[in-house]
Each structure stands twice: as structure tokens, then as C-alpha cells.
């Protein structure tokens, strides 16, 4: 089996390194970072932290170098999905492409370029320490499901099985929208609040007035999910409170806060913006998500001056 990780950032690297240890899987890693790709090819891809792994995927910055693959796993930031899949789609003519990215709209972007798409959501997290070396912060489960009827569940199961055997526990389900929306709602209700206030996740949650705003955002997301007939696999509120515990993520700065502090483009269009867009398609009002979306876009615009 041949799998290509499209976007070998922190989370992509976790999949690439672990999968490359399997005897029956050949792993390719496509990324735009020359330094990361060169380091991987010279010294291997090293994970440290929650697990100590040195993987040996074939890394490249050249999409034309990719062979035909059985599976793609897109792990770029959501704003890079379109160019990343446009560049690599030729490798997946006979394969399936899965996304485990944040936010909404990734499956649709991929489906514009490839036939068989797998919806997914993942919880492992990490950060790149230096080219070729990734800190593995959090282990966690991944859920995959067919995007539409063109993707056979058996193929989803084949990919999930490989990931699970590689140490990345993955479930194949018929409808992955519940887990996906639970995470989207969680991210859209908490990441931008951290980004706008500068507070860690735990400090956001311990302020009752701010926690109430988070719940207002969660409620809008739940209403948009319900309007599509999506049953959340569990309440995002539980995930939010769980993550606020000292031993879990009290001191964690949301990735969007890290982006804002580093003045990098955020995934806001695919989180709050995604909820607003899907909400309007289903006639569900989302005024708080609209407000948060506009504020974070404003933050991004303030860097351009």
C-alpha cells in the first residue's frame, strides 16, 4: 500500500513517521518546506515526546515526483488545501484522499480534484521543533468516513487499519460528520476567543462571562449541525471543560492564538466562517460566529498596514 501525506507539518509528520514503520506501507511526504523535506531525506523524520519514533518516509517538495498512491492524507492548514490538492491530485487518480484537517470545506475542496474522498477528524497534536524533528504533544484518536457514495467503506477501513497498526488509533465509520462537527464546534468556539483575548484555554474557561460567550458560540454550531441532520458523537461542551483541566490543556495557547502572536494567517474562514456559511445555507442564524469571524479577519487585516 502506498500512502502520501500531503502537508507534512506537525500533525502530518506524526502520521508520516508512524506509518513509515509499517512493512507493508510505503509512505511519501509532500511538503513545500525545502528544509523539512531535506532533513527528512537525510536524517529521517524524528518524533519525540508522547512517542519516540524515527520514520523514513520519502519526502519531496516536487509534486511531479509522487508515484501513483492508494491513499492521500491531507494535513495542511485549511487555507492551503486547494493549492495542495491541485498540485498532487494526479497521484490519486485511482486512490482515495482523506482529510483530517481543521474546519469546514476541506472535503469539498478535495472533491473538486479527486473522485474518492474520505472525511476525517483527528486529535493528535504536536509542533515542529526543527526541520526533521517534531514534538509529539498529544496522542489521540482519528475518525474517518466516506465523503459520499463514491468512496467504498472498505477502502476507508483499509486506511484506518493501517493507521491503527502504526500506532495512530483510527476508527472507520459510515458517517464521520458527528466527530468532525464536534471538533469544528469546539475549535470555532474556543480558538478565536483565545486569539482575540490572548488568554490560554483554561483562563478562557474560568471566566464565567467569557465561558458563557463560548457556550453561545457552541449553541449556534450545534443548531447548524442539527439542521443538517448531524448527530454529534458527544457534547462539545464536555470537550471544552475537559480541555480546561490543569493536566490537559489549561495552559494551552490555541493554535489560532499562536498564529496571531506570530502574525500568520489563521483558519478562521474555515471555523467561524464555515459555521456561518453552512448556517446560512440551512437558514440557521449565527450572529455570534459572524461577529467573531469579522473580528479575527480584522486582526489579520491590521497586520497589512
Amino acid at each position, binding site marked *: 500500500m502506498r500512502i502520501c501525506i500531503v502537508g507534512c507539518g506537525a500533525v502530518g509528520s506524526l502520521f508520516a513517521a508512524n506509518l513509515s514503520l509499517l512493512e507493508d506501507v510505503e509512505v511519501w511526504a509532500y511538503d513545500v518546506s525545502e528544509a523539512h523535506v531535506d532533513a527528512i531525506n537525510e536524517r529521517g523524520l524524528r518524533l519525540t515526546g508522547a512517542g519516540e519514533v524515527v520514520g523514513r518516509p520519502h519526502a519531496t517538495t516536487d509534486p511531479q515526483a509522487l508515484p501513483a498512491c492508494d491513499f492521500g492524507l491531507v494535513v495542511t492548514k485549511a487555507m492551503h488545501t486547494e493549492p495542495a490538492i491541485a498540485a498532487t491530485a494526479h497521484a490519486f487518480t485511482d486512490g482515495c484522499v482523506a482529510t483530517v484537517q481543521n474546519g469546514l470545506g476541506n472535503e469539498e475542496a478535495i472533491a473538486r480534484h479527486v473522485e474518492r474522498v474520505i472525511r476525517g477528524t483527528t486529535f493528535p497534536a504536536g509542533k515542529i521543533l526543527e526541520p526533521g524533528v517534531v514534538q509529539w504533544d498529544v496522542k489521540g484518536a482519528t475518525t474517518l468516513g466516506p465523503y459520499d457514495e463514491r468512496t467504498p467503506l472498505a477502502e476507508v477501513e483499509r486506511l484506518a487499519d493501517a493507521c491503527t497498526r502504526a500506532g495512530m488509533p483510527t476508527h472507520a465509520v459510515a458517517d464521520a460528520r458527528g466527530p468532525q462537527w464536534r471538533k469544528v464546534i469546539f475549535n470555532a468556539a474556543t480558538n478565536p*476567543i483565545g486569539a*482575540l*483575548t*490572548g*488568554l490560554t484555554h483554561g*483562563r*478562557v474557561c474560568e*471566566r464565567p*462571562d*467569557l465561558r*458563557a*460567550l463560548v457556550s*453561545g458560540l457552541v449553541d449556534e454550531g450545534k443548531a447548524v449541525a442539527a439542521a443538517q441532520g448531524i448527530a454529534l458523537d458527544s457534547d462539545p461542551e464536555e470537550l471544552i471543560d475537559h480541555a480546561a483541566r490543569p493536566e490537559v490543556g489549561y495552559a494551552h495557547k490555541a493554535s489560532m492564538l499562536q498564529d496571531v502572536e506570530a502574525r500568520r494567517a489563521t483558519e478562521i*474562514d474555515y471555523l467561524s*466562517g464555515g459555521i*456561518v*456559511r453552512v448556517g446560512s445555507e440551512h437558514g440557521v442564524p449565527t*450572529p*455570534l460566529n*459572524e*461577529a*467573531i*469571524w*469579522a*473580528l479575527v*479577519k*480584522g*486582526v489579520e*487585516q*491590521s*497586520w497589512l*498596514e
Partner: protein
Amino acid sequence: MTRVVVAGAGSIGSLLAAHLARVAEVAVLTRREEHAAALREHGLRVSGRSEFTVPVAAGTDPSLLPEADLLILACKGTDLEPLAVSLEGRFAGATVMTVQNGLGAEEIVAAHGSWPLLSAVTFMSGTRHGDEHVEYVLDTATWIGPFQGTTYEDARRVARLIESAGLKAEAFPDLRPAQWSKLVFNATVNGVAALTGLPHDFHFAETERLSDLGHLVRDLVDEGRAVASAAGVDFQDDPWEMNVLATQRGFRHSPSMLEDVEARRPTELESINGALVRAARRHGVPAPLQTAVYRLVKAKEASYSE
């Protein structure tokens, strides 16, 4: 000659004190002794729309300042309570005028003395370049109205005095419509600026894309309008139009709340956004977006002050 004491020499206080010193006897009450000393030694310099330097009396102890006919309280809203306490029993013959942003300044002052009170809101702006130098930036008017123990005629007299000093001023029989216009304008523009880091520029009036800030600004103004009308007040000027006009001037003004957040100082959030949100609750008017902005700025302040 009219005797004026200006308490608080930030940019607004400095602009008022310097201009009035050309037509009245002016003393400035400052918080820091070195600020008062600098004013006594060098006078107060204005640049920008006016260019002049005037001598002013200055001190930090209200009991050592000369008596006054008009006492202008120009400190920030957050400093008003301690200032009013320090003025208790002083300036018995003076009419007191508040120029703080937001709501509630007059009530704070009234709790500490029986001075006749005038309300004012000011739309002029300046930038301090040190203790004795203020740049006069926006020459928009100061609006004045009676609050308690004063009449429209008193407001007109003070407006004429300020005009004769070279600033713009206008008196109104009832200031509340103007105060509410400015309250809602300030809560909206200051809040959005403090959260985004954007100065008050064209982004605030943009409505082309769904995520453009103009939609949020308009929705925030609409909530403010509903609160004002529940309080029995119609806007003097529509805050949305004030916003559009201000962003068309081509001058990127940094609202004070943005400057405060960037300098990691306490903001005037409570007297502006807090006052609006509390008024909404008191009148039973839903204001979810103004409430969200208020909570976010409060939390942002907490991120650097706790």
C-alpha cells in the same frame, strides 16, 4: 476674566486648558508633581491645528489652586472617582463640567459635592507629545448641556467661552441624544479597534464580503440604538453615519481603547461598553453582540493585568 480650573491634563484636558488660557485665567490640576512643575516652568504648547504656547498655573493639590468659576473634569473615566473625592468641599462657587466618555460621570461627581453640573461630550482629539506639549488633531466640536442645577443658558455661556478660545463647541438644551450617540459610537468603534488592532479606518465601514467588519459595526450600532430608545433617547447623530464619515476622512485615528490595550493599560471599558451593556440589561433589551465585545475586551485586559 473667567477663572477656570482644568482637572486632568491628558490630551483633551491639555487642549482645553491651553486654548482657554488665552481668554481666561487657567489653572491645571495634575496627578504628578513633575507634570505640574513642567507646566509652571514651560507653559503649555499646542501644535497642529493651532500653534502657540501659553503660561498656565498648575498644581497637584486642589486646596492650593485658586478659586474657579468653571471646573472642567477632563480626566479619564477610570480616574474620576478618586478625583471627585479629592475635590470634596472645594471650589464652592464653581460650575463643574464633565467631559468623560460613556455614561455616569455626572452621577459620580454629584455624589461628592453640590456643584451645579454641566454635561459635555467632546469629539475633538489630540496627541500628547510630553507633559507640556499637545498636538491638536481633530477639530470637531465639544457639545455641552445642563445636567443639574444649571440651565441651557449656562451651557451656552460655557460653549461661547470655549469658542472664543479657538475650539469648537455647541450647547444643547438636552445633551442626552448627543451623549448616547457618542456612547454607542465609542462602545462600537473602541471595542472593535481594541480587539482587532485596527485604527478607525475604512475597514469599519466595509460591507462587501460577509466577513467584513462593517456588518458587525452596523449590528453593534443597531443594538445600541435599541438600548437608547428603551432609555427614551433618540440619537442626535446616527453612530453608523458618524463611523462612515470618520473613516472617509482618510485619517487613521487610533481610538484610546486601542492605545490603552497596546500599552497594556486599563481601558475605559467599564464606563463605555460596560455602561451600555448594563443599560441594556436594565431596560430588558437584548444586546448579545455588544455584550460579546464587552466580555472580550474585559478578558483581553485581564490577559495583561492579572
